[in-house]
């Protein structure tokens, strides 16, 4: 054992020296070998155990449930094939209403959110006094929960004594019933989302902007390019991967929108998202089907379609963002 160790030329061949090293420690070479073989798997095991039980298993179970008429109200479960999906896609106006609302609010919140974040990041990227103060102040909304945001803004958008209507009154506009009107409710909910996320995205863009070489800007400035021109011709194309990243994150978050519209109305019927479902999102509808109507099989189909929507929109975003920024 030890003779083997001394004959091996140390440090010449890395794999070889490791093999010898492995034999040194305890006098139990098999133990060391086991350690080298097994430890990596043991170290990553916790994730895979949790993910298998609470991630993978539920997904397959969802697929199975979606093919049945399972419900806690039914004594028996029967296989119904694709009936749930057929009903969902062809004969369920409430579902399509929820899809329409979700996408409407997604676009209405994401586009301004990312544009504002880009502008803020661009401003933060200048040489300014109190950099850290500005960054902290702009990032601060991320400490609030979506529930807190929803409660604060619900009062700002109150019909009778709300701050938003007071501001409108100042400029001579009639008060708006923010919950009754579809577009008004979308707008109100989108501002909640944006308030929480603009600063976060701005920091991400700022980080990416700081990694762009300053020489490019100096060269462009020498050639007489204005700041605006520099922004569109250097900053935006250089930020492409970051913009794709934030778009995908916003898509995953935006299409799961739940807490803000739920808490926008007080009272117990909140899952229906307004008197006529003006702001009911897909996730709210999913819980309504699951917990109020107890149609579990059908809820499984809703969950699967929601996932497919998120996946395909993320993919389209990715393609689009690649296209747009490579045109510049």
């Amino acid at each position: 054992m030890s003779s083997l160790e001394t004959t091996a030329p140390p440090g010449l061949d890395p794999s070889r020296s490791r093999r010898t090293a492995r034999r040194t420690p305890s006098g139990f070479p098999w133990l060391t070998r086991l350690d080298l073989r097994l430890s990596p798997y043991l170290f990553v095991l916790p994730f895979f155990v949790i993910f298998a039980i609470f991630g993978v298993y539920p997904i397959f179970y969802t697929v199975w449930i979606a093919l049945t008429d399972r419900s806690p109200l039914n004594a028996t479960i029967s296989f119904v094939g694709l009936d749930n999906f057929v009903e969902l896609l062809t004969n369920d106006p409430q579902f399509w209403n929820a899809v329409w609302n979700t996408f409407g609010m997604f676009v209405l919140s994401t586009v301004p959110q990312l544009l504002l974040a880009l502008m803020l990041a661009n401003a933060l990227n200048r040489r300014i006094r109190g950099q850290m103060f500005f960054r902290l102040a702009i990032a601060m909304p991320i400490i609030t929960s979506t529930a807190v945001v929803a409660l604060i803004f619900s009062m700002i958008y109150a019909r009778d004594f709300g701050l938003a209507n007071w501001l409108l009154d100042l400029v001579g506009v009639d008060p708006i019933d923010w919950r009754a009107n579809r577009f008004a409710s979308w707008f109100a909910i989108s501002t909640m989302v944006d308030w929480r996320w603009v600063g976060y995205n701005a920091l991400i863009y700022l980080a990416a902007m700081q990694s762009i070489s300053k020489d490019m800007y100096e060269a462009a400035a020498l050639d007489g390019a204005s700041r605006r021109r520099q922004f569109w011709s250097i900053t935006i194309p250089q930020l492409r991967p970051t913009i794709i990243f934030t778009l995908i994150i916003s898509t995953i978050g935006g299409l799961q929108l739940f807490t803000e519209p739920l808490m926008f109305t007080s009272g117990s019927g909140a899952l229906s998202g307004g008197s006529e479902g003006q702001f009911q999102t897909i996730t709210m509808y999913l819980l309504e089907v699951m917990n109020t109507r107890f149609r579990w099989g059908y809820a499984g189909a809703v969950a699967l379609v929601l996932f497919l929507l998120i996946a395909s929109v993320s993919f389209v975003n990715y393609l689009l963002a690649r296209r747009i920024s490579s045109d510049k």
Partner: protein
Amino acid sequence: MTSTMLRPPAVRPPAAGRPGLRHRAERLWTASPLTWIGLVIGVFLSLFPFYWMIVIASRTNDAANSWPPPFLPGGKLGENIQRVLDNGDANIITGLANSFLVSGTITVATVFFGSLAGFAFAKLRFRGKNALLLIILASMMIPIQLGVLPLYILMAKLEWLNTMPSVTVPFLIGGFGIFMMRQYAEQAVPNELIEAARVDGCSTWRIYWHVVVPALRPAAAVLGLLTFMEQWNQFFWPFVVLADPANPTVQISLRSLNTAYFADNSQIFAGTLIATLPLFVVFVLFGRQIIGGIMEGAVKS
């Protein structure tokens, strides 16, 4: 991890010696008045809701519902907080305790399992590494809604409904923590050090404990902060499994306040203040690290 923050601002090689050119290059990064106006508006909009929260939480409910709306804090903060704490529907004290327990447990577990797995993926060789890494990446794309129904049934079977394990165990370790620690371990732990420890007869576990853990400390702190904040603010899944208002997390307590048939706004706002306060303290103490973590993560991805 915090290299973005630690980097001295704007260190550039002197621009070619020509004073005119240099001046021009400097001017490129000065802030215009428009920049300042934009930033001030941004800061105002960002901070106003916090101020507003304090204003309403410190008023009587009548004053909170008056026209024009109040803009200055009143003197009723203590009274309103007392009313929330006493509110039998919200159980906010239980909620706070539960939230600390759940978020704390998940944070410790995430940092531990995340650093362990991150180290393995960054520094150890094993078969199937890349495939496993890909699975972790894919797991981050799956929304919880997809499996919400079977998860609910599973929790019912385990008899975990309305208890804290249901909102803790599934989140003990996520893909994000592993990725973050892997990125950091790759650059922060020198291979030579691991090799040397092996030659000295260290087992993999001892290498993790004595070599890797000390090196990962800064990243672990940031991961801990981000995880705690995220878990403290969880809403969707607790909403599904914690239907019994007697044993909520703090966010579910807020929900209970909101479903009361009479909207007592000053009480609700006192509740939001209480629910936000712990993270506010975290942000005041560690804001720089949190921001550094967000920015660093962005560059890596």
